[in-house]
């Protein structure tokens, strides 16, 4: 690999993620290497390209590579020497180095603190731009001069006023330059002029002499003027435009301005628009200058096809309003904007931009001056009709037009509005018809967005919204895959008391596509105003008349339970109480999945034993999958409470950065003789134990060597280190090679070693001296993360039992001693965390109620639940009796 390739790779790695790249090396050494390579004297084309690449790093990330002003200054100095040693003909490289020096000097505040390097660099730049019309250095060096102008302009932008005492010199240069570069000089001069005047507006009682002196300045750089931090904000962002005092003699300035305007035509459109904006700001700040200066340019600008020039014209309109634009001008400009917003030869993005400009059109007499969004009064329904959305528009254009038209018709007179709204309604219906015919994603999403925009504006028109909702329901009955879109829409229009969309949808549900329907029903169950009878009958029907219960799919069961979860705290639950109870009991008996059965049983118990108020209270606090708000609140509380306390979860998770951390389980065995063997084997030597995992859930186990095993001595301990990929119970085949006293080697198969589920448990891997508080915090954070349901792998489960012989505390001590996070016997609650390598957690919250104990289980690996449930491991732990039996 050549040096160039090597650098290519390193630079790509750096640009992809500077912080990650610099973690493998230090900033200083990387910077040193960069500069060293740049100083390399060898020149060939390949190296030039590499060097340009290296410079681009400094250009794009100066603050990362030069974290302090001193490093910045040193780097700038180094780059200066690189610049002076780079041969004349390496133009591109030289230009890049110039830009990099400028960027480093600005970004590391060398400029603001007026360092020697910054001063030298400015002097050098200014010297470079003196070579007008390339008399001295020739045409080939023109790009260097252009770059010098760009660098100076950048420094003036970041340190406004820097050039304010050099305006006469700059003016002369601008006048004398006749090559294409006069654009650069022109922009540089205008920026300097604008900033100088802006600074002068801060001063009270400016005299004619002071005013004139800025135009005639031919001194050094003005280092102290950077106290004006806000001067770089354009005037349309300021509450009040700063102004010079009245009555100053503006004759010279006026002729300068006229000349600049006259020559603006020679600039590139983008630069021209920048120049015009600067000139507008100057005229706005100097009362002695007439706005009519711009009159000569207006027609040319009104007709322009260039988006940046049109935009600059609107800026002019915004700044000068009726002092430059008559009512006719204003009407004309707005009509042109409407025309351009639908012009067949403009690009879509430009047209979208012009539509934004119509929405924010700067009127001479705006109704509200508060800056809040309101449609310009000049945008009448008649004018806007030209922007009516059609089904042939692309998505963005259609939505943009629809939004505009909705705004217009909201403001319009009744008669006119009704007709207009009717058209929009027809348009929405046409869109929905298309959705009905073709379900492509974009069509569906765009149509629902359009519907949303319409409903947001005309939610008061019940008849129309009802029709739309009817149509949606109708569509849903044919295309149930629209469920997520419709749920999203329902969520969004929630705040508006509309005839409930989801309720209507529920009436059309059928057995097909059950998983979508369950999602819709879950959402429907949140609607307090909808009675839930239909939902319950549908579910009853589905569960009894299908093989759903026999199939025992955990996910489907969970989705059904999620509907119930929302039904349980529905305000009109009493109307369907019996049916709901029947259903829950049916599931708790018939559903072929223990976890689902248990859940259903809990819901049943809660439903039949608690009043509605208590029930909602319990649901809000305890059970998983509750209202979205509750967990959010509690987590923000805990953040507040911990305040500046360290985030232990981060500390905990940080440990896993260390390769191999917490990835192993060590199992200890004794290696003993089988009961009866040939005396030949009483003493065996150099035993090599070989383990072979029976499944792919575990990494290969390294062989274990034992020096000797004698029948009459203590049997040696063997530590088997297991590295699970998935922490499931497993078993290992074991074989041994060994030597007997007579020197012969033997191979023997040993009984399989089975590894049970609890054997893989480890205590929470935190440093040994971690406080209880820290362990609790980690527990709670993991619990929150798991309960939030953000990950599709996490799961929450519930288990209830009635302790029989032993007390609950004893049971916990027996089974979970090493894994206890908290043990608050007085409050009858315990928290247990089981860590399973490589990084799985099972969290238990055990509480004892009057006659039963409840275990809430959270895990970040749903696959582990069967091992807790199916094997009834928890049952065995607690020798439990199920809740439904105890009630």
């Amino acid at each position, binding site marked *: 690999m050549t040096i160039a390739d090597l650098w290519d790779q390193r630079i790509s790695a750096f640009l*992809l993620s500077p912080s990650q790249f610099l973690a493998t090396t230090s900033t200083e050494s990387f910077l040193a290497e960069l500069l060293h390579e740049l100083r390399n004297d060898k020149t060939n084309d390949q190296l030039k390209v590499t060097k340009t690449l290296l410079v681009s790093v400094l250009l794009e990330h100066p603050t990362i590579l030069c974290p302090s002003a001193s490093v910045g200054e040193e780097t700038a100095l180094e780059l200066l020497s690189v610049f002076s040693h780079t041969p004349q003909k390496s133009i591109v490289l030289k230009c890049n180095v110039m830009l990099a020096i400028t960027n480093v000097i600005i970004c590391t505040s060398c400029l603001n603190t007026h360092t020697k390097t910054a001063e030298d660099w400015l002097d050098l730049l200014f010297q470079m731009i003196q070579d007008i*019309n390339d008399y001295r250095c020739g045409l080939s060096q023109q790009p260097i001069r252009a770059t010098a102008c760009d660098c100076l302009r950048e420094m003036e932008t970041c340190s406004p006023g820097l050039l304010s005492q050099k305006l006469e010199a700059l003016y002369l240069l601008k006048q004398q330059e006749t090559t294409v570069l006069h654009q650069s000089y022109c922009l540089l001069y205008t920026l300097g002029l604008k900033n100088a005047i802006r600074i002068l507006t801060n001063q009270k009682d400016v005299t004619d002499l002071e005013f004139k002196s800025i135009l005639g300045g031919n001194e050094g750089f003005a280092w102290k003027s950077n106290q004006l931090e806000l001067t770089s904000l354009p005037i349309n962002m300021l509450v009040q435009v700063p102004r010079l005092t009245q009555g100053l003699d503006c004759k010279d300035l006026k002729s300068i301005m006229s000349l600049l305007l006259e020559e603006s035509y020679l600039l590139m459109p983008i630069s021209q628009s920048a120049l015009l904006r600067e000139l507008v700001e100057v005229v706005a700040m100097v009362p002695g200058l007439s706005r009519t200066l711009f009159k000569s340019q207006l027609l040319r600008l009104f007709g322009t096809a260039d988006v940046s020039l049109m935009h*600059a014209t609107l800026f002019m309109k915004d700044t000068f309003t009726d002092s430059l634009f008559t009512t006719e001008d204003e009407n004309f400009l707005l009509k042109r904007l409407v025309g351009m917003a639908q*012009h067949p030869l403009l690009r879509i993005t430009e047209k979208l931009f012009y539509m934004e400009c119509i929405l924010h059109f700067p009127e001479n007499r705006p109704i509200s001056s508060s800056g809040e969004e309101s449609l310009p009064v000049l945008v009448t329904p008649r004018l806007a009709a030209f922007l009516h959305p059609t089904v042939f528009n692309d998505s963005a254009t259609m939505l943009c037009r629809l939004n505009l038209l909705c705004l217009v018709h909201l403001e319009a007179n009744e008669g006119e509005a009704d007709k207009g709204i009717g058209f929009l309604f027809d348009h929405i219906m046409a869109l929905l018809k298309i959705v009905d015919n073709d379900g492509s994603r974009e069509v569906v999403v765009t149509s629902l967005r359009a519907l949303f925009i319409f409903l947001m504006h005309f939610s008061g028109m019940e008849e129309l919204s009802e029709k739309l909702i009817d149509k949606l329901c109708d569509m849903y009955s044919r295309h149930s895959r629209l469920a997520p879109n419709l749920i999203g829409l329902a969520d969004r229009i929630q705040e508006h008391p509309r005839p409930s969309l989801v309720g209507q949808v529920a009436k059309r549900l059928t057995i097909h596509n059950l998983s979508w329907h369950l999602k819709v029903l879950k959402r429907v169950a949140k609607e307090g105003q909808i009675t839930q009878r239909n939902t319950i009958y549908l579910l009853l029907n589905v569960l009894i008349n299908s093989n759903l219960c026999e199939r025992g799919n955990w996910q489907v069961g969970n989705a059904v339970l999620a509907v119930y979860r929302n039904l349980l705290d529905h305000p009109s639950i009493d109307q369907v109480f019996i049916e709901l109870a029947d259903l829950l009991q049916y599931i708790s008996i018939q559903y072929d999945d223990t976890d689902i059965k248990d859940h259903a049983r809990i819901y049943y118990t809660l439903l039949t034993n608690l009043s509605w108020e208590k029930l909602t209270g319990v649901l809000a606090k305890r059970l998983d999958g509750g209202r979205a708000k509750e967990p959010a609140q509690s987590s923000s509380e805990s953040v507040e409470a911990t305040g500046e306390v360290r985030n232990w979860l981060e500390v905990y998770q940080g440990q896993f950065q260390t390769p191999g951390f917490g990835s192993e389980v060590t199992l200890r065995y004794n290696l003993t003789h089988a009961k009866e063997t040939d005396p030949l084997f009483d003493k065996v030597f150099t035993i090599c134990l070989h383990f072979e995992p029976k499944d792919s859930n575990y990494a290969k186990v390294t062989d274990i060597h034992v020096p000797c095993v004698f029948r009459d001595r203590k049997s040696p301990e063997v530590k088997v280190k297991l590295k699970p990929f998935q922490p499931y119970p497993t078993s290992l085949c074991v074989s041994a090679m060994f030597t007997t006293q007579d020197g012969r080697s033997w191979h023997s198969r040993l009984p399989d070693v089975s590894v049970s589920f609890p054997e893989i448990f480890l205590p929470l891997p935190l440093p040994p001296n971690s406080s209880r508080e820290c362990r609790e915090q980690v527990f709670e954070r993991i619990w929150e993360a798991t309960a939030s349901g953000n990950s599709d792998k996490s799961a929450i489960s519930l288990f209830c039992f009635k302790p029989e012989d032993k007390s609950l505390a004893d049971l916990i001590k027996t089974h979970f001693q090493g894994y206890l996070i908290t043990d608050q016997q007085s409050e009858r609650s315990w928290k247990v965390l089981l860590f399973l390598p490589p990084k799985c957690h099972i969290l238990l919250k055990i509480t004892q109620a009057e006659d039963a104990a409840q275990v809430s289980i959270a895990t970040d690996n749903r696959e582990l639940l069967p091992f807790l449930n199916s094997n009834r491991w928890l049952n065995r732990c607690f020798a439990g009796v199920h809740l439904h039996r105890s009630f």
Partner: protein
Amino acid sequence: MPNPWLELSTWPFQRTASYKLLLTELGLVDADKPYVEVRDDCARQHRSPAVELRLDGPGGRTLWPLLTFTQGALILACLPLVEAPPEPRPPLPSLASVSQGLALLSGLQDFLCGPGGKPEPDVLASRLAALPSVLLQVCPLGRPLDTPPPAGSVPAAVAPSPGGAQKQPAWKAGVHRGRVVVSVALTEKVRSMQYGKSSQQDIWDVYGMVMCKCEVEGVLPNVSVTLTLPPNGSPLQDILVHPCVTSLDASILTACSVDENDCSAFSGPYKFPFSPPLELFRLCSYTSQVPMPPILGSYQLKAEENHLKANVVLKLHESVKNSFEYYEAHIPFFNQNLMGSVEVKVSSGQLEVSKEKSLLVWVLGQKFPKSREAALEGTVHFSGTVAGPTDPLCTGLTAYIKLYFRVADAVFRYCRVDQHSVQVYSSAKPRIVTTRELVSSEYYIWNSTGDAPVSLKI
């Protein structure tokens, strides 16, 4: 802080989080997933030229206003500088950098894709390789000064201009040396939606553009092009001109398509004085309302038992020259099985069944018959079992014919541009080349017996 007007990344950006978010936003990843909340939420405003990316999910940090242009596999994006407090979010038009960003991206698109819009992969690769140095030139320190020159536009016979007495325009890298040639090409495109129903009004309009290539000596030579209309010709509306046009008469701009009762009707001549750049450029463009469409058509499609019966009549307007470069009527059938037997007769030209068996192509050739009328009649059977293409609009009897034609050396509305309308103020005698053409664009004739989607305005 530096002043990065636009963050421009030319380095591999593929694996960054913002890139993934952008692709999600544009629907380019997970295209098969019907609903992705961050992308498909109905309340997300998807109607502005600026995209918003939420870097840390809802409520997190945002990247705004991200401007994007997508063309084929190419995504161009830039993030204009917001020179204002971020909250409350400033309106897009209050940010100077937005239009500059749009202009820069348009320029980059032209530079990378060239006039055809679809460059060969190796051509695109070489242009991409040149991008960093082009950006250095047009957008140093992230501040756009210029748009890159459109690909392939570097003119021959250009000498660099030494600093003379007259200032060289920044948009003209040198001066032309050699023969003086001015080429002016006027292209008019006509759009139409014809429904053949009294309840639905037919609509049509014309838009045109004048492309120029001027090889004229001098730093700032003066050239002018004048467009003239016949007596009673309808005025040119929504005229947009190239920035090189030096001055405009107010009356030229008055006509506007959104002005319904515009009686002031200035009808020319439209004079555009300008100083040309070296490359080919669009001098001006316009729209126009013409009294009649160049071709009137009717389309009747009826379902009969197991086939469709079609009847088409096309009529050429007398003002249009009856000499076409090409003329075809496409009759597609959607949401049907593939075509079986086709028993269709045409009075002129010939009929072809497309390979895909879902489209009839009626090639009318170079000329209409003397009567200026052509007809098609017959039945189409869909006996196949394989389903043809689908279309969400064209269900049931909703169907259309789309016309494709080009008439060279003729402009439908007689908007005239000829040798006499071009003036070049030059010492050498110029050679002037003018061409004009009329081309169809979005020209639909809907089945009058079915529902047609409403379009108030094209």
